[in-house]
C-alpha cells in the first residue's frame, strides 16, 4: 500500500494550536540551537544553564532581563506598527542611534536644570530625530516605490557612522583618556532607577505603549484605516484614504518610538554616548514582533523572553568567552522555527493512502 503526505489549508486554527505553535517553535529552536552549539565546540548544557542562571536566577538577574526588555518592547511596537501597513522597518537600529544623538544634543546644547523640562525636550527631539530618519524611507517607499527594506537598512549604517563621528570627534570627552565617549550626563538628564537596580523609568513607557497601540489599532478610525490600507492599498485609495500620507505618518511614529527607546536607553542606562551603544535591539525586535504575531500585548511577554537571551549572551561572553553576537545563532534559529510553525498554523498534513482518498480505518484494514 502506498502512503503519501497531503498538505491542505486549514480553514480555522484552534486557540490551543495558536498558543502551542509559538511555544513549540521556541522549544525546537532551542533544541536545534543546542545541536549547533555542540558542533561549534560549545557545551550546550553549560551555555543554557549559564543563560538561565544569569537572567532568571536571582532578583538582580530578573531586573537585568527587564532592563533589556524595555527597549525591545518599545522597538517591537515600532516594527509592528509599520508592518500593519505591510511596511518593513528594518531600520529601528539606526532610529535608536538617531534618537540617542538627538537626546545627547539636547543635553549638550539646551540644558535646563529642571528634570521635567529637560525630559520634555529630550523626548520631543529624540522622537523627531528617529521619526524623520524612518519617514525618509517611508516617503521614498510611498512616493516612488523604493524598497524600504534596503533603504531603512542602509540608513542604519549611516546613523551608526554618524554616531561614531560625534563620539570620536566633536563630542568626545576630553577627560576620557582617548576612549570614544561623551561626558556623563548630569543627574537632571538621567531617568530615575527603581529599587537599586538598573530598571529605569523607561519601563513605564514600555508597558504603556503596547496598550496604547492595541487600543489605537483596534478601536480608532485611524487604526482601522491603516489596517485596511495594509491589507488592500487599492481599496483604501478608492475609499479616499491617502496612502502616501499615511505611510509617511506611520513610519514617522514608528521611527519616533525607536528614537525615544534610544533616549531611554541613553538617559536611563548608559548616561553617555559610547561605542557599541545599542546591541542590535533594532534587529532582535523584529523577532519579538514576529514571535508575538504582531500582537501588542504578546510583545511584552516575548520581549521578556528575548531579554533572557540577551542577558545570557552578555554573561556567556564573560564566562565562556563567546563573542557577543554568538546569540544571533539562537535568534536566527528562533525565526526559522517560527516560520516553520506558521506552516502548521496555516496547513495541515494528512497521511493519504493509495489514490489520494482519505485514509479511513477500513481502508487501512483492507490494505493489510
Amino acid at each position: 500500500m502506498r502512503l503519501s503526505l497531503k498538505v491542505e489549508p486549514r480553514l480555522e486554527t484552534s486557540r490551543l494550536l495558536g498558543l502551542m505553535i509559538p511555544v513549540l517553535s521556541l522549544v525546537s529552536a532551542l533544541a536545534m540551537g543546542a545541536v549547533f552549539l555542540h558542533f561549534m565546540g560549545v557545551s550546550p548544557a553549560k551555555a543554557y544553564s549559564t543563560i538561565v542562571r544569569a537572567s532568571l536566577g536571582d532578583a538582580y538577574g530578573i531586573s537585568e532581563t527587564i532592563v533589556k526588555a524595555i527597549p525591545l518592547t518599545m522597538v517591537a511596537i515600532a516594527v509592528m506598527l509599520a508592518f500593519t501597513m505591510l511596511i518593513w522597518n528594518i531600520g529601528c537600529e539606526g532610529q535608536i542611534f538617531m534618537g540617542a544623538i538627538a537626546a545627547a544634543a539636547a543635553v549638550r546644547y539646551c540644558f535646563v536644570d529642571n528634570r521635567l523640562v529637560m525630559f520634555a525636550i529630550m523626548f520631543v527631539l529624540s522622537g523627531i530625530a528617529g521619526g524623520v530618519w524612518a519617514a525618509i524611507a517611508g516617503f521614498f517607499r510611498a512616493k516612488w516605490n523604493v524598497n524600504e527594506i534596503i533603504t531603512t537598512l542602509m540608513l542604519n549604517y549611516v546613523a551608526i557612522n554618524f554616531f561614531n563621528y560625534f563620539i570620536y570627534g566633536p563630542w568626545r570627552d576630553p577627560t576620557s583618556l582617548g576612549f570614544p565617549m561623551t561626558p556623563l550626563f548630569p543627574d537632571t538628564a538621567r531617568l530615575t532607577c527603581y529599587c537599586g537596580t538598573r530598571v529605569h523609568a523607561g519601563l513605564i513607557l514600555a508597558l504603556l505603549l503596547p496598550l496604547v497601540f492595541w487600543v489605537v489599532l483596534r478601536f480608532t478610525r485611524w487604526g482601522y484605516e491603516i489596517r485596511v490600507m495594509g491589507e488592500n492599498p487599492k481599496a483604501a485609495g478608492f475609499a479616499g484614504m491617502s496612502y502616501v500620507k499615511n505611510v509617511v505618518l506611520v513610519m514617522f511614529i514608528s521611527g519616533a518610538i525607536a528614537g525615544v527607546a534610544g533616549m531611554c536607553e541613553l538617559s536611563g542606562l548608559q548616561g553617555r554616548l559610547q561605542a557599541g551603544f545599542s546591541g542590535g535591539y533594532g534587529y532582535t525586535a523584529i523577532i519579538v514582533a514576529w514571535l508575538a504575531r504582531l500582537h501588542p500585548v504578546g510583545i511584552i511577554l516575548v520581549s521578556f523572553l528575548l531579554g533572557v537571551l540577551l542577558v545570557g549572551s552578555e554573561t556567556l561572553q564573560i564566562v565562556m568567552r563567546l563573542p557577543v553576537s554568538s546569540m544571533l545563532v539562537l535568534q536566527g534559529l528562533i525565526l526559522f522555527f517560527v516560520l516553520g510553525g506558521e506552516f502548521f498554523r496555516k496547513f495541515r498534513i494528512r497521511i493519504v493512502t493509495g489514490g489520494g482518498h482519505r485514509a479511513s480505518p477500513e481502508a487501512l484494514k483492507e490494505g493489510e
Partner: protein
Amino acid sequence: MEILVPILTAAVRSGTPILYATLGEIVTEKGGILNLGLEGIMLLGAYAGFAVSYSTGNPWLGVAGAFCVGMILGLVHSFICVTLKGNQVVSGLAMTMFGTGASSILGRDYVGVTIEGLHRFPIPLLSDIPVVGPAFFRHDALIYCSYGLVVFLCWFFTSTRQGLYLRATGDNPRAADAMGISVARTRYFYTMIGAGIVAVGGAHMSVAYTKMWAEHMTAGRGWIAVALVIFAIWHPARAAFGAYLFGGVEAFQLRLQAAGTTIPAPILMMLPYLMTIAVLLFISIRKGKGIIFGAPAALGLPFFREERD
C-alpha cells in the same frame, strides 16, 4: 590617468565580493525566490573559505568549501520558502542573523591569523594593455572567474533552454508548471546555486582580498548586493558595472583617509550606504511606480500547486 589606474584596480578588487553576491542573488531571484540572507551567507562563506584554506593550505579548496556551505544555506532557505511556503523576507533576516552569529562563534579562534591565500596572477599580454591591463588583468584568479561568470550568466539566461525554464519559473510559475517544469525543483536548485555563488563572494574577501578573518568583515556588502540587483535590473553585466562602482567608492574613501584628509573617517564611511540609497532612488524614480522592467513577476511569492486527485 595616473590617479585613475590605482582607483580602478582597487575598485575591481573590492567590488568583486559584491559582484559575486549580486550575481548569486540574480540567479536566485530569476527563479522567483527572494533571498535577503546574503550578509549571513557571505559571512559564513568568508569563514568557511578561510578555515578550509588555513587547515589545508589550499585556497581553492577554501573557495570550494565556501560554495558548499552556501549551497547548504540555500537549501535551508528554499526548504522554508518553497516547501513550507514561509515568508521569504523573514527567512532571509533569520539567515542573516544565523550567519552572523555562527561565523563569529566558529571564527573566534581565527581572529588575528593570516593565510597566504590566493596570489596575484597577471595575465600575460592582456596585463600590458595601458589602463585596462592593470585595472582588470593583474588580479587573483578568482577575480578572473567572476568575469567568466558574468559572461556565462548573460548567455545562460537568454540563450539556453535551462535559462528559459528558470526565467519562466520566476515570471509565471503556473505556466512553467503547465509546461511540465517542476517549479519546486527549479527553485530549490537555483536558490542553492545562487547561495553558493554568494558564499564564494564572502570567500573572496577572506581568501584573496584581506587574507584574514574578522567578525562582521562583510560590513553590509550583502545588503548592498541586494540593492545592486535592482540597480542591475537583473542583468549580470550591469551587476558588474554596479559592483565596480561601489568598489570604486570604497577604494576612493579609503584612499582619501590614507591621504590624510580633513574629512572625518566616519563621514567618509557613510558614502557607500548613502550611494546605495541614491542609486535605488534614482532607479525607482526613473522607472516610475509599478513593475520594474526585468523584475521576475512572481518574485517573493510562494507557488501553490493545486492538488489534483
